Each structure stands twice: as structure tokens, then as C-alpha cells.
């Protein structure tokens, strides 16, 4: 809760800084100037603030468009994950476009002051959506890779069995193969919960949800280590088969 309060304070402070800093050139003048010049400066600062807010939205819309394409072209994403991510990106895109229209129509600093924080707090595009998209894609790709590794482990097992049937000692190969399978099992255990853990996270869960994203990220990195170790164990199994038959 304290983190949320702190976040809101930071957001309010940021908006206040924007509102104060941008028209600052006008407020900072100590010498009296013609009122028409001051009004022009203030109008210019107001427009500048509006442009910055709209640019911030554009950056986010561009990112959402990139991620949408990434999701649509990824062949390893499950249909369910793909549908959920696309729905969230679509909703965020529509919401930001509507917010941009409101900001464009704003006439006063007060109106803008109420809208600008929404760019961040209503969507958390880079802090939540982006990591969520990439974590789910990575989890599904890694699940696919683990499956392919399993197929290779099965092929190595077949070779081990044939070597044993021919009467040769394939124990070392079997030990390495068992190690490969243990690494694959550990990888699956780490990868499997990730989509479920992050897909449900919403902007209202921020910034606390950031910790869950970091945990999911760490789990995928650990799973990658397991897959690398599985590859090494697979190689050792094949070498052991060759040693057993003198190949």
C-alpha cells in the first residue's frame, strides 16, 4: 500500500513539475511585460505540454503495434495466450487513442493535469504490458523448445537401448541421458507457471506487480540454464554411446 501511495505522490509530483516547468518562462519573468506577450507564452507552453503528452501516447501506441505484430507472427504462442494478449493490447490501444483525443480537446491546465497521469497509471504500457507480452512469448517458446529437447532425449534413449541390445555397456550414456531428462524436467517446472502468473496482472496491481514480473523473469532465466545443461548432458550421452561401441 505504501508503495502505491509513493507512486501516486511521484506521479502527482511529475505532473506538477510538468505543469509548472513548461509555462515557467512566462511565470519567471520579473519585469512587467505586455499582457498579450504573456498570454502568447502561456498558450505556447500549454500547447507544448499537450504535444508532449500526445507524443508520450504515440510512443506507447507504436510499442503496442510492434508487440501486436510480434504476437500475431509468433508460431509458438498458444492460441489462448495469443488471444488474451491481443485483447489486452487492443484495449490499451483504444484507451490511449481515446485519451489522446481528450488531451487534444483540453482547454485548460486543470483539464490536462487530470489527464496526463492516466497515460502512465491507467496502462503501465512499458512497466507491465511490455514485460507481460515478452514473458508469455518467452515461456511458450521455451515450452516448445523443451518439447523438442524431449524428442531428442527419446532418440538418444532409442540409441542407448540398441547399444545395450547389441550387448555393449551403455551405462554411462544412460546416466548422462537421465541427467539430461532431469534438467528438462526442472526447466518445465520453472517455465510452466509463468504465463498463469503474469497474464492476470493488471494496471491496478502496479507497482507491486513489478515484483511478480521480476520473479517470472528470473524463473525463465533459470529455466534457460537448465536447457543449456540439458544440451550438455545430451552431448555427453552421445559421446558415451560412441565410447561404448568404440565409434
Amino acid at each position: 500500500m505504501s508503495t502505491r501511495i509513493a507512486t501516486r505522490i511521484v506521479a502527482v509530483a511529475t505532473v506538477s513539475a510538468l505543469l509548472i516547468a513548461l509555462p515557467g518562462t512566462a511565470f519567471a519573468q520579473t519585469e512587467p511585460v505586455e499582457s498579450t506577450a504573456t498570454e502568447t507564452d502561456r498558450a505556447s507552453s500549454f500547447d507544448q505540454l499537450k504535444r508532449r503528452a500526445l507524443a508520450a501516447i504515440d510512443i506507447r501506441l507504436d510499442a503496442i503495434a510492434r508487440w501486436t505484430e510480434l504476437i500475431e507472427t509468433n508460431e509458438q504462442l498458444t492460441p489462448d495466450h495469443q488471444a488474451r494478449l491481443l485483447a489486452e493490447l487492443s484495449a490499451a490501444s483504444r484507451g490511449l487513442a481515446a485519451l489522446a483525443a481528450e488531451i487534444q480537446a483540453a482547454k485548460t491546465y486543470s483539464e490536462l493535469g487530470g489527464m496526463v497521469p492516466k497515460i502512465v497509471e491507467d496502462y503501465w504500457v512499458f512497466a507491465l504490458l511490455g514485460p507481460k507480452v515478452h514473458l508469455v512469448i518467452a515461456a511458450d517458446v521455451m515450452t516448445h523448445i523443451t518439447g523438442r529437447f524431449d524428442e531428442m532425449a527419446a532418440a538418444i534413449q532409442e540409441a542407448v537401448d540398441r547399444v545395450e541390445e547389441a550387448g555393449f555397456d551403455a551405462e554411462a550414456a544412460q546416466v548422462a541421458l537421465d541427467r539430461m531428462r532431469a534438467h528438462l524436467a526442472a526447466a518445465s517446472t520453472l517455465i510452466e507457471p509463468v504465463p498463469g502468473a503474469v497474464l492476470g496482472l493488471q494496471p491496478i496491481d502496479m507497482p507491486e506487480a513489478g515484483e511478480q514480473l521480476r520473479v517470472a523473469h528470473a524463473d525463465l532465466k533459470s529455466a534457460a540454464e537448465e536447457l543449456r545443461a540439458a544440451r550438455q548432458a545430451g552431448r555427453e550421452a552421445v559421446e558415451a554411446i560412441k565410447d561404448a561401441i568404440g565409434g
Partner: protein
Amino acid sequence: MRKMIGIALLTGLIAVGCRPVGLPTLTEPPDVTTTTTANTTTTTSASTPSSSSQPSSRGGATSPAENAPPEVEIDLSGLDDLLAELEGVLADVDGAMTEGESQ
């Protein structure tokens, strides 16, 4: 007539008596099969035994002295391709997390 029967019987007895008893049957050569699974090719085929190979004496297994050792070829290059794909995906996640932290 008796002489002919006697000669025939004697010939038969000699033939039976000289048959090698317990002659081992010839073993079948090892299977030669090729299995292709997801970039992995496993081939077992007959080849010359090597001095480094130590046949085991597992129950029921045909003696390696009579069975040529299988030649095994497994292509693991597919694993490297998959790991290269993995590194790319992880780099994307790292980038997204870093970008998120800086928001």
C-alpha cells in the same frame, strides 16, 4: 540282401554319430534402422568392433563377440539451433524488463 541292409544301417549309424552336437546357430546381424525425429538422426548398423569397446554380459543379450557393435550417429545440431532461438527470446525479455524498470 542281408549284406545290403547291414551296409545301409552301418552308414546311417556313422552319419548320426558324426553329426556335430551343440553347434551354435549363426546369429542374426544387428538391425539396421534409421530413425529421424526432430532434427535427430539415429542410425545403428554393423561395423567393425573396436578394441576400446567392452561388451557387457547382460542377461539375454547376444554376445558382442558374435554381434558386430552398432554404429550410432546422432545429430545434435538441432539443439544448438533451438538454444540460439532461446537466447534471442531471452534478450527480448531482458530488453522489455529494462524498459519497464525505467518507466
